[in-house]
């Protein structure tokens, strides 16, 4: 079967979209969890060993939440914007607080 270049690109799009969603849910979900871990660890007004534990526990719940959200949102770019945006915001807040000394 011979496909013209434009046809084969159209065929490849669903595959690319599926891969993009998978990456968003897995790598994106983990990145979001890491950002949550950072912001909670630094942002909670507690002894830092305590805040670290809360942060890690929150992070492992953030990952499945992000993964489900990545698959639940109908539009791919909404999912991408949401996960990457939330990750960036958490990361920015964590960075602005800085490592406690």
């Amino acid at each position, binding site marked *: 079967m011979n496909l013209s270049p434009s046809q084969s690109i159209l065929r490849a799009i669903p595959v690319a979209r599926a891969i993009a969603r998978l990456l968003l849910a897995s790598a994106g979900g983990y990145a979001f969890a890491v950002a949550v871990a950072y912001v909670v660890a*630094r942002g909670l007004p507690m002894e830092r060993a305590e805040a*670290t534990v809360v942060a890690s526990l929150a992070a492992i719940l953030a990952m499945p939440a992000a993964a489900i959200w990545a698959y639940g949102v109908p539009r791919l770019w909404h999912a991408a914007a949401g996960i990457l945006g939330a990750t960036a915001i958490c990361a920015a807040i964590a960075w602005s607080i800085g490592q406690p000394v």
Partner: protein
Amino acid sequence: MKQGFRQSMAGLHSWSGLILGWLLFAIVLSGTATVFRSEISGWMRPEIVKTAPPDAAIEAAVRWLGTHHPKAAGWYLSAPDERIATTQAVFDDPAAPLGYRDIALDPVSGSPDVARATLGGEFLYRFHFELQLPYPWGRFLAVAAAMLMLIAIISGIIIHKRIFKDIFTFRAGKGKRSWLDAHNVLGVLALPFHLMITVTGIVTLLTLVMPWGTTANYGDDLATAFAESAPGLVSREAAGRPAPLAPIGPMLAAAQRAFGEGRIGRVSIANPGDANAIVTVSNHDGDQLAYAARTVSFDGVTGRILKQYVEARPAQQTYSVLYGLHMGRFAPEVSRWLYFLCGLALAATIATGLVLWIRSRPQAPGVGPWLAARLNVGAVAGFPVAILAFFYANRLLPMQMPGRAEGEVSAFFWAWGAAIAFAMLRSPTRAWREAFAVLALGSAALPILSFALTGRGLWNALAGGDWLFAGFDLTLFAFAGLAAAIARRAGMKVAEMPPRRRRQAVPA
């Protein structure tokens, strides 16, 4: 829009469940068996009949280790209790294949040679989260499987329209509909357990998979992070100057006074035989929900108390309780059986889900569905066959065989591999039936073989109050019955299924 959401969740549920589903089944079943880790260890060491109080057993273990493994960097001991007679000892040993040894010591003599060489229940425990892979890859794979299971459970709840009603719905003999009903009943009935065990399972590997909270607050300074997260633990480098270890008995007695009602649980001895030796005694995990709640540390040479610690910080305690919930060590007899039954329900939920995936795609072309249908048999029937092979090897391998403990593990993997290979060669319908028939026969015959070889069997166990052997044999017979029932039904076509038991039984 709402329909679309539910549909995408249905897709997420079936794919997240499938992708590591076979591995998950093995993880869940080995974890379920691990609920009875102590009892399995006891059954696999039938030579151990004498018991000793925990402090005497620890003293004996320290004596034996001091003679035979004085150069280890640390000895980590778990004291015997009412569930297990032996002291479990873990220590580094360059001569061991894995670089460390995990052995059971006789409570009276402290020697590992009283009982046959076996890993006992420790093998299933380790397999549950390390999957016999090198560190840390097995743990990473296990936690990835757990995360996928968590996603599958949550998306499963979302796609479920009528959680409560489904508890009471089972329509037998209706093909795919029955599989779906079974999947729903098993999943929903113990749903709180399934969620709890999955989340807490991830929690047990928290520091490995989610170290970023620590990095955020401590950077590279892991020593400070560790000191602040576990202030009860004293750690110091070996001095390099030999010094004899003080008698352990008085230290255990002092720890016992500190614990009050609580029992002695774990005893770790760092730098034994060195001037900087440290002895840390933790209270028994079975005494409270939290894991490792209280510790007393001693200077190993003088026997003087260095530190006493009771964890009371709320977040650390929460973590410790979540950890303890997964380990289930706190659970007394009845709740231990509930853990076991809920674990079986989770394994069965996974198994029925895997079958459903195939049933929903009966005409799907390609190698994927072909392989999936066969892997189902290889995993669901093959893994219990492998556990059974491990138990058989324990009874049948020669006592003095070199590498005997590893031989039992080899038997486990050979049996699993053989079951998968067998599933590849047969049609799935036949393979289901034959594999479960093997499982039924194997389970039923094991107590008889064990009686012939050890003289400890069901009748004299029941008569003599030997609840360990009685319980083990009765459980095997129950599994034999279950496997036989599955084998009988697995081969039938939908039309041949008896309509419903109850309707047949009523004619009188």
